[in-house]
């Protein structure tokens, strides 16, 4: 198969676009498309200060690479979750993230959950008794809190994550099958900062297939953590991705159409905004925006840890625990 642009040997064929590209043109095409999505969804401009959530996986590292190639001011944030899973999962993902940053002279900010708050995420799941001993629930809550707080405290007005189209389509499928209206209304390439303590959240890779991001990482020589989070094995997200890819196999472009049609339907008013806006106020303990009365759910969760382990509370000066490379 030949590259559509130069007739050299293609390295990837994107059936949904009827587009095959060689290595050179694929490496040009990905940032060009990313820039197009950034502008189309008004994600950010070169004047914005961006914090990229880095997991050590292909998507987040590729996103960071692309944003730097495009000339944006983007630092990375790695959150050490303390997940071992028999393979030093967190240690290895931290090592690869740090290696990526060091090799490119980039600034990676690191928050180690255990050092900062007093327990690892798996310990937190057990102590807080949330999620039936599975850490995904407390992990999600913790990451959202820490990402937003690190962005706010560090003076970043934009928080970027590496969600790709397969991630978005899988969540969309799950929410549609459950008619989860609240989540459907909020699913978008950009979540605006609706409160002074919240960063704008953006997903610049939301229209790339996961396959394309893996290809980009390989072609760019990005070393990423290949293994799954041990707690994600068997997740429903992966199941929905497999189903969507079966559709894609029979009908190229199905995933893309599913997601883009959803965004278009939202634009056309298919989903009415929620009649009652959630009112946010500052958490009595940490000051972060919360809809809960009194303390936010993150602080309440760590209260339980302190009671059991004598761990530290989330400190107002959390950034003193952030290590800058």
């Amino acid at each position, binding site marked *: *198969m030949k590259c559509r642009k130069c007739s050299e040997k*293609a*390295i*990837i*064929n994107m059936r949904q676009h009827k587009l*095959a590209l060689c*290595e050179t043109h694929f490496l040009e095409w990905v940032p060009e498309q990313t820039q197009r999505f950034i502008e189309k969804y008004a994600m950010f401009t070169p004047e914005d200060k961006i914090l990229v959530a880095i997991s050590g*996986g*292909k*998507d987040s590292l590729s996103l960071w690479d692309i944003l730097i190639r495009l000339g944006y001011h983007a630092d990375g944030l790695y959150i050490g979750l303390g997940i071992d899973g028999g393979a030093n999962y967190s240690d290895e993902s931290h090592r690869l993230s740090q290696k990526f940053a060091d090799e490119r002279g980039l600034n990676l900010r690191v928050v180690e959950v255990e050092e900062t708050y007093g327990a690892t995420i798996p310990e937190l799941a057990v102590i807080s008794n949330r*999620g*039936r001993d*599975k850490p*995904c*629930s407390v*992990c*999600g*809550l913790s*990451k*959202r809190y820490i990402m937003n707080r690190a962005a706010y405290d560090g003076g970043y007005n934009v928080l970027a*994550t590496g*969600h790709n189209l*397969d*991630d978005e389509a899988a*969540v969309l499928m*799950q*929410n549609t099958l459950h008619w*989860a209206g609240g*989540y459907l209304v*909020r*699913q978008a390439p950009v*979540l605006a900062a609706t409160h002074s303590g919240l960063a704008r*959240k953006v*997903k610049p890779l939301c229209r790339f297939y*996961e*396959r394309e*991001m*893996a*290809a980009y990482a*390989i*072609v760019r020589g990005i070393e990423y953590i*290949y293994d*799954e*989070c041990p*707690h*994600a*094995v*068997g*997740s*429903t*997200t*992966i*199941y929905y*991705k*497999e189903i969507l*890819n*079966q559709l*894609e*196999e029979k009908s190229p472009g199905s995933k893309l159409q599913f997601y883009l049609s959803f965004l278009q339907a939202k634009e056309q008013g298919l989903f009415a905004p929620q009649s009652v806006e959630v009112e946010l106020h500052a958490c009595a303990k940490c000051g972060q925006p919360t809809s809960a009365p009194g303390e936010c759910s993150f602080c309440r969760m760590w209260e339980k840890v302190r009671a059991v382990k004598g761990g530290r509370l989330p400190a107002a000066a959390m950034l003193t625990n952030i290590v800058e490379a």
Partner: protein
Amino acid sequence: MVYRDKEYEVPAGMTVRDALKKVGLQPETTLAVHEGKLLTDDTILKEGMQLKLVAVISGGCISLSGQTEHPERSGARPSTSLRSAHAARARRVVEGSGGGVV
């Protein structure tokens, strides 16, 4: 072909796409790498070629809208059974394959 520490053998002369399907892998979720270079699906495999297969799916547990997935929320574990089916098919193919080795 090597996929997640497992080796598969398929006859030469097949396309990458057909080879992936033959061992029970979805072409949409797998990249084929030969000597460090990506191969398109229509590449015809030659005798003695050794491919590394890269799985592209990852299972994030977080969305920015505040939704967190729980792996066992839905009760059943279809993903595992799908994988088992893939693995079983793959084993059958490997055991039954003959001819050239890729």
